[in-house]
């Protein structure tokens, strides 16, 4: 076994009074993929940031090529060939794809920028990822998965000897995940050292050479990945045995609560019609860019849309999110950082923002807000070191849980959940699935948009499949399986002509 390029020894890290890492050891060798797994808030991202020079350890050493090193900042680490892809996007929204990829290390001809070279190179990097985005497009204009691909392209462009990837696939669909994993294979073969985190344990099983498991800031396992089953990984993470992920599906009632007719969103969604029954979990599947998000944003009044939406038999006032909320229809966004949470504000303020009216009589009842936070922390297992911390300082998965708590606080009859478990660890995932099933059982109705097919399959009573902005099919009962859905999504068959 070769010597580690990059390692940490006895590293601890505290944020204020809260210690999040305890004497952690970790090393990374050339030509190996080392997976770091653990529950939300276990300290994975923190470990990675310490390795990549974004944060100093409170105590302990970072070793580079066997020698202790203190990174002044991330640039210093990057100069040593250590590149990190952050869990949260690290892109400037107003700049173009190409500008982001080359930010801080622009190619020049003489003193001038070499636009052509940079565009060609961006094109090449994106091609490597099979990503069709125009390098001149603004980041704010491209979809979330594509942003992640740009983020990866940006890292690839930096000639890394050590590549640290914090949940790169959380926002990717199966197709892009495949592309990325193939790419990681190639990089490993080229001798790159790769640190990889994901809550999708099948990916870990597929590419990892070695696995380290963190639990509550302690390293609880380190060893070869070979022979380690996903169940074993999950157990090591959670510290208990996990039962079946999905509970048995409930039985929807025969009462339509949401009826959408001929909904269109300019250029993105065409002529979509569907309905949702009381107590039903309705899945939406499709490829990236198939328009599921846009359809639901149109339904809930977040986007201008044509067509009609009827809730509990009453037409919904178009274009008004508030009207939707008052009718009991709420949407949980897929983009928690830009649309979901106020990262600079506290947990309470985020939690109650959507349902603030419930706490107002006529002053905001801060004591009740505080109780709501306590409840949400318990119900969604939010691991916050400190109740007064900013939402942005929560670990990624815990942000997602907070967002879920925020949405559910509005006590919706109908909830549309876009990518419910993005970045959530396997243990909590199970809790969320249970939660969704119970929600349906209690007479609420749920729409689940997910790029994780297993999720849609395991949860939904019925599944709508979208492609190119149209609903191309509906499957239910035993037809809810991967083969049927993928076929529909790829536009191969049209089982149920929607037109």
């Amino acid at each position, binding site marked *: 076994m070769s010597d580690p390029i990059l390692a940490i020894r006895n590293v601890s890290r505290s*944020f204020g009074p809260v210690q999040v890492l305890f004497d952690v050891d970790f090393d990374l060798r050339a030509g190996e993929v080392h997976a770091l797994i653990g529950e939300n808030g276990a300290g994975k991202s923190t470990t990675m940031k310490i390795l990549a020079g974004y944060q100093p350890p409170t105590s302990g050493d970072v070793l580079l090529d066997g020698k202790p090193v203190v990174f002044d900042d991330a640039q210093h680490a990057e100069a040593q060939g250590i590149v990190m892809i952050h869990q949260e996007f690290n892109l400037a929204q107003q700049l173009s794809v190409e500008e982001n990829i080359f930010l801080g290390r622009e190619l020049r001809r003489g003193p001038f920028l070499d636009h052509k070279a940079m565009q060609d190179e961006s094109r090449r990097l994106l091609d490597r990822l099979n990503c069709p985005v125009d390098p001149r497009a603004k980041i704010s204009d491209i979809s979330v998965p594509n942003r992640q691909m740009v983020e990866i392209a940006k890292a690839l462009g930096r000639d890394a000897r050590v590549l640290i990837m914090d949940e790169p696939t959380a926002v990717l669909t199966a197709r892009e995940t495949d592309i990325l994993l193939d790419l990681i294979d190639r990089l490993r073969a080229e001798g790159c050292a790769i640190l990889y985190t994901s809550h999708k344990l099948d990916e870990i099983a597929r590419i990892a050479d070695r696995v380290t498991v963190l639990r509550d800031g302690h390293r609880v396992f380190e060893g070869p990945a070979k022979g380690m089953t996903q169940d074993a990984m999950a157990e090591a993470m959670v510290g208990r045995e996990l039962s079946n992920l999905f509970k048995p599906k409930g039985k929807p009632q025969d009462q339509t609560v949401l009826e959408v007719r001929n909904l269109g969103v300019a250029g993105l969604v065409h002529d979509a019609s569907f309905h949702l029954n009381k107590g039903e979990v309705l899945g939406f599947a499709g490829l990236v860019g198939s328009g599921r998000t846009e359809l639901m944003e149109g339904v809930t009044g977040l986007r201008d849309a044509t067509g009609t939406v009827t809730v509990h038999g009453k037409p919904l006032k178009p274009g008004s999110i508030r009207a939707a909320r008052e009718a009991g229809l709420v949407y949980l966004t897929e983009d928690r950082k830009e649309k979901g949470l*106020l990262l600079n504000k506290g947990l309470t303020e985020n939690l109650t923002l959507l349902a603030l009216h419930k706490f107002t009589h006529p002053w*905001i009842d801060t004591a009740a807000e505080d109780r709501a936070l306590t409840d949400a922390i318990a119900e969604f297992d939010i691991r916050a070191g400190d109740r007064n911390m900013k939402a942005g300082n929560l670990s990624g998965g815990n942000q997602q849980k907070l967002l879920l708590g925020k949405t559910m606080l509005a006590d919706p009859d109908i909830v549309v959940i876009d990518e419910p478990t993005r970045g959530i660890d396997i243990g909590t995932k199970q809790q969320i699935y249970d939660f969704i099933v119970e929600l349906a059982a209690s007479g609420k109705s749920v729409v689940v948009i997910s790029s994780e097919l297993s999720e849609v399959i395991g949860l939904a009573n019925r599944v709508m499949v979208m492609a190119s902005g149209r609903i191309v099919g509906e499957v239910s009962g035993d037809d809810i399986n991967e083969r049927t859905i993928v076929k529909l999504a790829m536009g191969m068959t049209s089982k149920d002509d929607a037109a």
Partner: protein
Amino acid sequence: MSETTAKTWMPSFHVLGPLLALIVLIILGASINSNFLSYGNVTNVLARSAFIGIIAVGMTFVITAGGIDLSVGSMAAFVAGVMILVMNALIPSIGVTVPVVLLGMLTALVAGFIAGWVNGVLIATVKIEAFIVTLGTMGIYRSLVTWLADGGTLSLDFDLRGLYRPVYYDGLLGVSWPIIVFALVAILGELAMRHLPFGRHCGAIGANEQVAKYSAINVQRTRIATYVLLGMLVGLATIMYVPRLGSASASTGVLWELEAIAAVIIGGTALKGGYGRVWGTVVGVLILSLIDNILNLASIVSPYLNGTIQGVIVILAVVLQRGKKTDG
């Protein structure tokens, strides 16, 4: 590590910063002139702070919601002008009576409401940069008042002034009305910012408009509301202002906008929006008034250099506040 310091130090600095600056100024003033803490001087300073103060409270909401309003100074002049014209016009029919004054006050509030609403709609609905809209309306209101006054001064009827004058000069239990009104506005403002959904929503919009929208906040309406509130507070400030000198002209309210914005920011509200505190604004207003007052009381330097001292103190007041803050 830096977060640690941030957590434990920042609030204390943040909270104490402007207060500290205010206290330093008060000590300075008291040591320079023994009359500084006299009832008369304190009343003067507080009462004259009231106009900017009332406006600055409204500005706090606008800025917290990520906006800005450069038009408040000329809006005040315009509202004062309209108010005086209306009151003078009413005298022939109603006579010099209290109803005329009340109608004048109503006019000011309505004019402020409309002016603020126009700003708000152009910004929130037509979606033009707030800076440009209010720069434009700043010029428009200023030129309209000049035009109304025919280049000169609009003066309130002399007899009516006698009736109206107490609104500035009298008060309750030795506290003059402008101070009382300012205090009320400040308290209500602080309450609204901290304990009403409106304040929360302003902060949310300023922090991230998208998130606010996805949280079922009517961004457009809330944003317009901030400008309308500000407009009405400008009207209220004008109601206090007109009885003082009984006139309005093209030079009324010049640079009030900068003073109000400066007070808001000195008070610790973030110019980029997302975080505001009304009590800080009040402290900011007092700091600015005190600087002027102390410079007048002191006469230690060439009056030409007053601007230099003012500038330095304003910057220092904010330095105090920022403490050891890292990148913002």
